[in-house]
């Protein structure tokens, strides 16, 4: 009971700070909009996003088709709405899994013996040293394109990001006087981790995770755009772009309206993440 109260107080405080960041509010609105459309996609779409009506192909925006139609006459608006669900699923699943794994590996690396730390670092560096898209393409060749593949790839390449951040944070904490003082009192390792290290690592990781969401959305869309992601005709934003790109000379609308949600969403999450970081970063908060 008392604990939930504390959480609530924290949230209220964050909101009080966030309110003064116009960009953060814009970001929040966009994020709410995107998440909302992902949740309510079934209710929001006008027509079945995979339904063809060849007669109406390459239509500009109109009342019937608010964002126009593509080369098969599919309603772009409905496809964009349906695509938001795929984007959000990919982003949330991938980010939370890789942040979780990164958290475990990072803490182990920071607190464990030196050999473990070195091998973790080597693992992180190796995973990071594949150029992301090349790596993704190689993997797609092997296991075939699908949403699962994309999520898997994103998880693997995001682990080093989280792992390294957690490791640095853990190391700083480990050498801090308060941890030393806990050790001097005889605190056990699980206690050190659970009560003192984890809560202090969690905050920065949450922010990092929020900042990683737009990256993941872009990656999913990018791979789908190349034709290596979500299989057509499933309406992913990347697929809309792929179709639009092929028929760029016939109609600009699929390209314009396929790209817009990606840009809007990434901007929204980034602005929100930035503002949250400014609000939560204790160093910054002390001053203002």
């Amino acid at each position, binding site marked *: 009971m008392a604990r939930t109260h504390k959480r609530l107080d924290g949230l209220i405080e964050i909101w009080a700070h966030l309110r003064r960041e116009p960009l953060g509010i814009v970001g929040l609105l966009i994020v709410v909009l995107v998440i909302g459309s992902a949740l309510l996609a079934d209710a929001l779409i006008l027509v079945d996003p995979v339904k063809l009506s060849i007669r109406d192909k390459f239509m500009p925006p109109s009342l019937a088709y608010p964002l126009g139609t593509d080369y098969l006459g599919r309603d772009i608006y409905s496809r964009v709405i349906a695509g938001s669900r795929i984007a959000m699923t990919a982003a949330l699943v991938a980010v939370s899994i890789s942040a979780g794994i990164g958290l475990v590996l990072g803490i182990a690396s920071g607190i464990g013996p030196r050999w473990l730390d070195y091998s973790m670092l080597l693992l992180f560096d190796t995973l990071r040293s594949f150029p992301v898209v090349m790596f993704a393409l190689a993997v797609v060749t092997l296991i075939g394109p699908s949403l699962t593949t994309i999520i898997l790839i994103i998880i693997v390449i995001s682990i080093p990001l989280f792992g390294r951040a957690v490791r640095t944070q853990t190391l700083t904490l480990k050498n*801090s*006087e*308060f*941890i*030393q*003082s*806990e*050790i*001097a*009192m*005889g*605190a*056990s390792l699980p*206690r050190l981790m659970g*009560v*003192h290290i984890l*809560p*202090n690592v969690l905050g920065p990781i949450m922010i990092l995770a929020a900042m990683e969401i737009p990256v993941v959305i872009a990656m999913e869309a990018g791979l789908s755009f190349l034709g290596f992601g979500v299989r057509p005709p499933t309406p992913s934003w990347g697929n809309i772009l792929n179709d639009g790109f092929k028929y760029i000379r016939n109609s600009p609308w699929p390209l314009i309206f396929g790209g817009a949600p990606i840009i809007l969403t990434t901007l929204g999450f980034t602005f929100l993440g930035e503002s949250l970081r400014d609000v939560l970063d*204790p160093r910054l908060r*002390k001053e203002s």
Partner: protein
Amino acid sequence: MSRLLEIEDLSVRYRMLPSWRAAMQSQDPYLNAVCGVSFAIEEGQSFALVGESGSGKSTLARAIMGIEKAHSGSIRFQGHELRGLSKRGYKSFRRNMSMMFQDPAGSLSPRLTVKRLITEPFLIHQIRNTNIEDEAIKLLQMVGLGSEFLNRYPHQLSGGQARRVGVARALALSPKLLVADEPTAGLDVSVQGEVLNLLLELQQQQNISVLIITHNLNVVLHFADRMAIMYLGRFIEQGAAQEIFLRPRHPYTQALLSSSPEPDPDSKGSRIELKGEVSSNMDRPAGCEFHPRCPIAQSLCTSTAPRESSADHGHSFSCHYPVAIFNEN
């Protein structure tokens, strides 16, 4: 009186270079932070470690607490040997020994309330037969803070208040030994006294032994029964605090004593200036390690390390040419 803590020939060292590199550059791969230190603390007594930065005083304290691994020698606490004990083995002694770290606010876990912080020792040692809430209030009272501090976080405390919380936490389980590393570091002179008075008072009330680390000799005279001066990881002088103040024998002790002069405009020129700076731990001078800075060094000092000599009242020092005792009255 019985001996609570006995340190014998204790050394602590850190590896600085991998052995192949040390061999290549014919260097000692270790930094000897503490070399062969012996002393004892009686029950209810206080002992002061004095020295400049890098002299190894904090390392010594941490080795006693088992946070730093001692390389050789012996640490006996209540008659039990602590060196070489496992973490679990150490834990049963930690109830009876506690440590306060230098940074008052930095040594408190930032996300815990004062109440949690001062009752942590009970949780760690699984003491359940007390009412934690009462205990917390009692502890706060003991260090002169009201119960309104219970729900504050470390960043909401002033330096002096954080220090008091540190004291409460260190004394929560009524330990036998308290190790206080620079308990007044970073505090203004007007607040310094409060913390020291608190420590003095509690020490006398609860008959705790205190190992206090400081670079300020004047604090020591008032506080400690015995003291030792450290230089490059060794004790160069050790004895009763009063004795050392009145009759310092090592030139370094004398210089340190003179370095915090009375605020008296007419006592000019009383400060003894030492040459150069503290030598490096990695590159120790031959002979007496203090000789490059010593104002009275002779040729013997550059070649032969002095042995420990003793004077009255358990006073000992390591110097070939100890400071003569004058103004004996």
